[in-house]
């Protein structure tokens, strides 16, 4: 029974809970059983909160009994990337430095999920401080791709993607700074939405690069993604960059199709570096969208080639400042034998941070230093404006932009460790969207010969998530890729 129950989508489970065909406790127990069964192989979880999840499930069942559910997803258990602060539940952000840190408050999105009645199964693995594209820079262990355990699920929200794909959770939240939701979604046959910057509150989300970070939903179907998104897309007075806009209705009109839509195909995104199987799958998908009634438009985003350098300069600069608070003084790990203040800082940070984090802190510190600021940070900000303008121009012509999510399918664990630059190239299609603050979505669009998932990326105008979901749903309806059984 557990295997069939955990195969349900969030909305399907929600319907069964509403019809009282199944209880939240049963669904939560099914998830816990599935976690016990497959997580020793997948290793998506840093921490399973069995007691907390069951308690929340019981409370949900009581509400259903009383006929007063809090939302359509009341009782549907989900997982959280370990970047979200959870009151009373250890939160490490994949780092040794925060080991043992028990937050005194919930992130706004965590509060919203609790208020909607969703039991939280636990905290999911991630690249340390969200820096990485493969989950291998987690300080604890790498997560494995459920479609091929020798491969990475992508990063930095790889734990969330793997748990969703492996049916350990019905849905999850991740964060996306340069593609950290979409790239792992593409690697794992799941749907990931990076909302418009400012759409979802960052309060209580451990910061990597403040001007780029954005939390978002990860799920198996487009409908689930839309439903989860609607729960967390709220204006938050605790986040000064939170947009004061209405919560979108993404479910009404989700089935409206793509007829009459103009979809841009940026020539810069179909470059030489792309894996031939990914390229073939994408071309076939574009033809399908055309058949479904969309018009494909050849467009150009001329500053794309500068996006990678711009992204790493800005993200590293902000990270070098955001991570300064981990000094061993107030929380987390402190170096044991440090003598004097300077030693306390250097040893705490030296022992607590992993290699990738140190690399980016140094890069950012350098880029912001007196004498280099104009040449690096300031110039990167100017290029960022140009990239934004590229998109604005493009959206004068088209309703959405279509591209691959990643140039290659999931790569082997260990393959790119030690070669940061080739790792950074994994984000080449996803990060321009973060620089421009736009919404982006990855939807499954096929499999390689070897059975590895391929993702299609959709980019939209600011606050136009509903349209991206509608396009993704039109494509999903033709395939039902999410029904395909995961081998693990």
């Amino acid at each position, binding site marked *: 029974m557990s295997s069939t129950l955990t195969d349900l989508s969030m909305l399907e489970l929600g319907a069964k809970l509403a019809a009282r065909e199944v209880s939240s406790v049963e669904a939560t127990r099914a998830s816990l059983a599935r976690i016990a069964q497959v997580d020793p192989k997948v290793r998506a979880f840093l921490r399973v909160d069995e007691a907390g999840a069951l308690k929340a499930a019981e409370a949900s069942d009581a509400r259903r009994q009383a006929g007063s559910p809090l939302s359509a997803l009341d009782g549907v258990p989900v997982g959280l990337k370990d970047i979200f602060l959870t009151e009373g539940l250890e939160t490490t952000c994949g780092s040794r430095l925060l080991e043992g840190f028990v937050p005194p408050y919930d992130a706004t999105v965590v509060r919203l999920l609790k208020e909607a009645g969703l039991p939280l199964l636990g905290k999911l693995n991630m690249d340390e401080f969200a820096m990485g594209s493969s989950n291998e820079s987690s300080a604890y262990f790498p997560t494995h791709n459920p479609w091929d355990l020798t491969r990475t699920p992508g990063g930095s929200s790889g734990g969330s993607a793997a748990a969703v794909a492996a049916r350990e959770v019905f849905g999850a939240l991740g964060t996306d700074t340069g593609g950290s939701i979409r790239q792992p979604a593409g690697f794992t046959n799941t749907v990931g939405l990076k909302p418009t910057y400012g759409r979802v509150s*960052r309060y*209580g989300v451990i910061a990597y690069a*403040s001007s780029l970070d954005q939390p978002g939903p990860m799920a198996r179907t487009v409908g689930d993604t839309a439903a989860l998104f609607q729960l967390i897309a709220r204006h938050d007075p605790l*986040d000064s960059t939170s947009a004061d806009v209405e919560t979108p209705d993404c479910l009404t009109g989700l089935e409206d199709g793509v007829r009459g839509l103009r979809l841009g195909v940026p020539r810069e995104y179909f470059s030489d570096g792309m894996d031939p199987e990914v390229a073939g799958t994408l071309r076939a998908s574009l033809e399908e969208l055309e058949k479904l009634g969309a018009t494909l438009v050849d467009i150009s985003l001329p500053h794309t080639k500068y996006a990678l350098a711009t992204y790493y300069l800005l993200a590293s600069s*902000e990270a070098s*400042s955001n991570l*300064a*608070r981990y000094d061993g003084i*107030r929380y987390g790990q402190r170096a044991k034998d440090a003598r004097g*203040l300077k030693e306390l800082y250097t040893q705490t940070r030296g022992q607590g941070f992993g290699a990738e984090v140190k690399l980016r802190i140094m890069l950012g510190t350098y880029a912001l230093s007196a004498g280099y600021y104009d040449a690096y940070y300031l110039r990167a900000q100017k290029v960022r404006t140009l990239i934004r303008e590229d998109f604005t121009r493009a959206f004068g012509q088209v309703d959405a932009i279509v591209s691959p999510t990643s140039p290659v399918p999931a790569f082997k664990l260990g393959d790119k460790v030690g070669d940061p630059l080739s790792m950074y190239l994994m984000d080449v299609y996803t990060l321009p969207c973060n620089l421009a603050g736009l919404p982006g979505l990855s939807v499954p669009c096929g499999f390689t010969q070897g059975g590895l998932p391929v993702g299609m990326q959709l980019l939209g105008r600011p606050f136009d998530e509903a349209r991206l979901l509608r396009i993704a749903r039109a494509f999903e309806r033709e395939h039902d890729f999410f029904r395909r059984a995961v081998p693990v």
Partner: protein
Amino acid sequence: MPLSDFQTVIGLEVHAQLLTQSKIFCGCSTAFGAEPNHHTCPVCLGMPGVLPVLNQRVVEYAVRAGLALGCSVKPTSVWSRKNYFYPDLPKGYQITQYDQPICEWGELVIDTPSGEKTVRVRRIHLEEDAGKSVHDASASAGQSLVDLNRAGVPLMEIVSEPDLRDADEAVEYLKALRDVLVYLGVNDGNLEEGSFRCDANVSVMPKGSTTYGQRCELKNLNSFRFLKQAIEYEAARQVDVLESGGKVQQETRLWDVNKGVTRSMRSKEDAHDYRYFPEPDLPPLRVSDALRDSQRQSLPELPRAKRTRFISEYGLPAYDARILTAERPLADFFEACAAHVSDAKKLSNWFLGELSRLLKEEGTPLSALRFTPAQLGELLATVEKGTVSANAAKDVLGEMFRTGRAPADIIAEKGLAQVSDVGAVEAVVDDILAKNAGEVEKYKAGKKSVYGFFVGQVMKAMKGKGNPGLVNELLKKKLGD
């Protein structure tokens, strides 16, 4: 060249805590003197995941100060991060304003021995305060403690141009600035508690030169006296360095209160690279026309304007006007009382004399005064009419001060009213002159010094309540003068 051949050049950077109830980026209290770390929350503790939310009252106060100092208020300014490691800096950076502050280019007029002088205010910017490290004996050996109650308290930094030319001008500027901020109600002007503090940039150059010398920054100047002493010491030190063929090094120096010297704190070589960049967690700070206009309309009359008006409107000497306008509550109370008296100078004498003595001795703030302006006016009128003597009036004021009772009641109860009835006084005068016929003879023979004796006897007989004018008048008449 001797010291007198050099010109001192001074610019001041003043940090003023804004009088808001809550901190600049969170809702924690700014009250002084709480238990360590009691006024803290995840935001001001710099916990992971927290974000700043701007306290709008801070913006209002800064705009108010900017307008009062004649600055242009920028419609858009920008928050920046100033990055450095220190245990009392919870986030590892301070949120401040850097190259685009909220106010720019104003001025403050001060008095100098050679007349009025206009000092340019280059900029006013906003920032958060850091916490406090406590190297306390009660902690275990070698340990330091951190108190973050102050972390996130809103500060306004007011930076002058190097327009000041000696320590007295610097003190005058600092006092004038404090008066303005206190008048506006944006700062309490308390140097001891550090809510109004000052750093000075000091350099020297040969007289007649137009090129400024290398400057040093002086810190820890928490009184007007220390500011004056530190500048004078530092200017002399720099002249000594130059005179002995050396070069003044750019550095930060601390004023050593005990030794009365400045000493090096850090040099340019180990100066921080603060790696400023725009704060991504806060949108640019926008000041609407409506906010600026409403602040402009609600600006009070400022100390200097008030002083000028007191001189012209009440005919007061400059000295009196300055003291009466130094603090807004005192000036307001003076004006309230002036509405009830005919002679403002006499009122001023009471303010500068008896009232200020009472306020000081009893430690009562003006806001807690028990008597009303009308009552004080009544007392002064009573003195004017000769109903009570000036001396007795002091007693009456003391009683009014303590109880708030009406002067007429106090005079009646204590029997302080003067006797101005001609018949009654005449009877006493006649009686005294009759009893002292010998002295009267001496007086008439030319020993005029006896006159005081007669006055004394009359007053004694009347228990001090005889109207002095009337007593004199009758005595002289009876003695045939």
